[in-house]
């Protein structure tokens, strides 16, 4: 037999080798939830390694938004682009992170479509591991996105009064909130049929959520009803908290708000997600 093509070159299945792998009766003890979640987080990192173009949303979009908003609106809104950048950058950081969370749902839905998810569901592992693992992998994406926005901001002239400590603390707060918000998208991805519809619905939630907030402008000039919406939007509190931390203050009240809404997001969407996950058809 001559081996010519790649397919033929791969040796046919040999009976002896098959027997030895089947007879290797090793039954390792079942790993705990932390290990399985981390392992599935590792999978998300491997996917970034193999498909780096999926990082477009964490790299190009934040850069685009920062540049566009600073130079389009800076002069008109704050008198100068420099002054606006000082106000906008923490907000853009929030927006970039919150936008990146959408990816969670789209990725998950793709996994469901392709059957990868059922492979994980068929394993005797802690049930939420595939979801938690995916979210842990996303923390890496948020970190990359944040680093890019902050670096670009510094290059353009953004100067955080809070120094490195303030910046790091605000990124940590962002990661916590993003991780919790992602459960909304995991829920959606289990309800909707295709990755496209997940993307569509996510956008519909995301645009009002990020724009009807204090990320881009001070809400003072908005009509009263809209100010009321802005006031209850958790994104507003997140942006205010991040601004405060970067500015060198500790806005305890706002941070408290963010943490409470984070807990609420997980408390509501976490269990719904798990029920949907268990009963996924």
């Amino acid at each position: 037999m001559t081996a010519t093509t790649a397919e033929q070159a791969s040796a046919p299945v040999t009976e002896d080798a098959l027997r030895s792998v089947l007879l290797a009766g090793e039954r390792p003890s079942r790993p705990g939830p932390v290990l399985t979640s981390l392992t599935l987080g590792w999978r998300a990192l491997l996917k970034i390694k193999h498909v780096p173009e999926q990082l477009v949303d964490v790299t190009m979009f934040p850069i685009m938004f920062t540049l566009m908003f600073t130079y389009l609106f800076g002069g008109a809104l704050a008198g100068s682009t420099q002054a606006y950048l000082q106000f906008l950058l923490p907000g853009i950081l929030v927006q970039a992170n919150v936008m990146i969370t959408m990816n969670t749902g789209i990725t998950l839905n793709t996994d469901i479509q392709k059957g990868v998810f059922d492979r994980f569901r068929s394993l005797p592992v802690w049930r939420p591991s595939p979801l938690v693992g995916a979210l842990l992998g996303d923390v890496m994406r948020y970190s990359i996105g944040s680093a890019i926005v902050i670096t670009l901001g510094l290059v353009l002239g953004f100067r955080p009064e809070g120094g490195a400590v303030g910046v790091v603390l605000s990124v940590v707060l962002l990661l916590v909130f993003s991780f919790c918000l992602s459960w909304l998208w995991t829920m959606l991805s289990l309800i909707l049929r295709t990755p496209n519809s997940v993307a569509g619905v996510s956008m519909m939630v995301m645009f009002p959520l990020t724009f009807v907030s204090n990320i881009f402008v001070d809400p003072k000039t908005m009509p009263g009803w809209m100010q009321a919406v802005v006031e209850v939007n958790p994104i507003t509190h997140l942006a205010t908290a991040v601004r405060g931390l970067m500015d060198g203050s500790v806005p305890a009240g706002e941070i408290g708000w963010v943490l409470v809404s984070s807990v609420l997001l997980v408390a509501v969407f976490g269990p719904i997600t798990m029920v949907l996950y268990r009963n996924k058809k």
Partner: protein
Amino acid sequence: MGKLAIETRGLKKSFGKTHAVAGVDLAVSAEGVYGVLGPNGAGKTTTIRMLATLLRPDAGEAQVLGYDVVRDAQAVRSRVGLTGQFASVDEDLTGVENLLLLARLLGYSRRRGRERATDLLDAFGLAEAADRQVKKYSGGMRRRIDIAASLVVTPELIFLDEPTTGLDPRSRNQVWEIVRGMVAEGATVLLTTQYLDEADQLADRIAVIDHGKVIAEGSSGELKASVGAGSLHVRLRAPEQRAEAERVLAGVLEVPAEPSADPAALSARISDPERVARALAELSRSGIDVTEFALGQPSLDEVFLTLTGHAAEETPEEDAA
């Protein structure tokens, strides 16, 4: 008969108005291959998904290896392996990464996991493709990595959902070899297929399923016997003698003989092979020259046609679930 690997009673699952599985009773004994044969949309995949704990039954009970699929789902999961279009490996990762990922999830250390992954890739002839992304694999390689993925910890029971659908004959034969190899090592395999010859070749017992129900069950021989002993096919030298031959055959065999598409040929279902020799002798005595004759076991196609009233492959695709 040994202990049962799978036992279901009145298993049901509906999706909206579609009764995908409408009361399935199965009794699958340990060791060997049990085939679930049916056309697209018959409810095969839905049944397997319930048995593999991926789908909760609406009604009925199912025990896999003695564990209830709903109450003891984790116990079932740790003992079965699953291969099918619905339980896939990650196409973005390489072969070795996929197997290492599963090995880690199942409790192997990093080092032992890597060894196990390498052994599996070697055994399945994928050693050279180990570091290639699975999306670049050919259909046959893809199916082999899918099977390997279900064997990372040797399971007591393996579900193979349509393992050869869409494969070329060579790759299909390789999958068959793998299945035979697994059975030789004492594995129990539940295999679904829409190919009659696949069930015929591999399965010790077969359940024929249609519209969510088991319509027949038995060994391939028993199923064939249930539709008669087979057919006698006869070809005549002179086509104009066919009408007379039909009369002769019908007289001896006591069943109607049917003309074939070939104007010189005809066939008859037979119940008793003994009569065939007499029928041929009678033809010769009547001065009818026979140029060819063949005695065929009924094919599973005929079995299916007899049981369901429709051919196996003609049902429209609806097995989306």
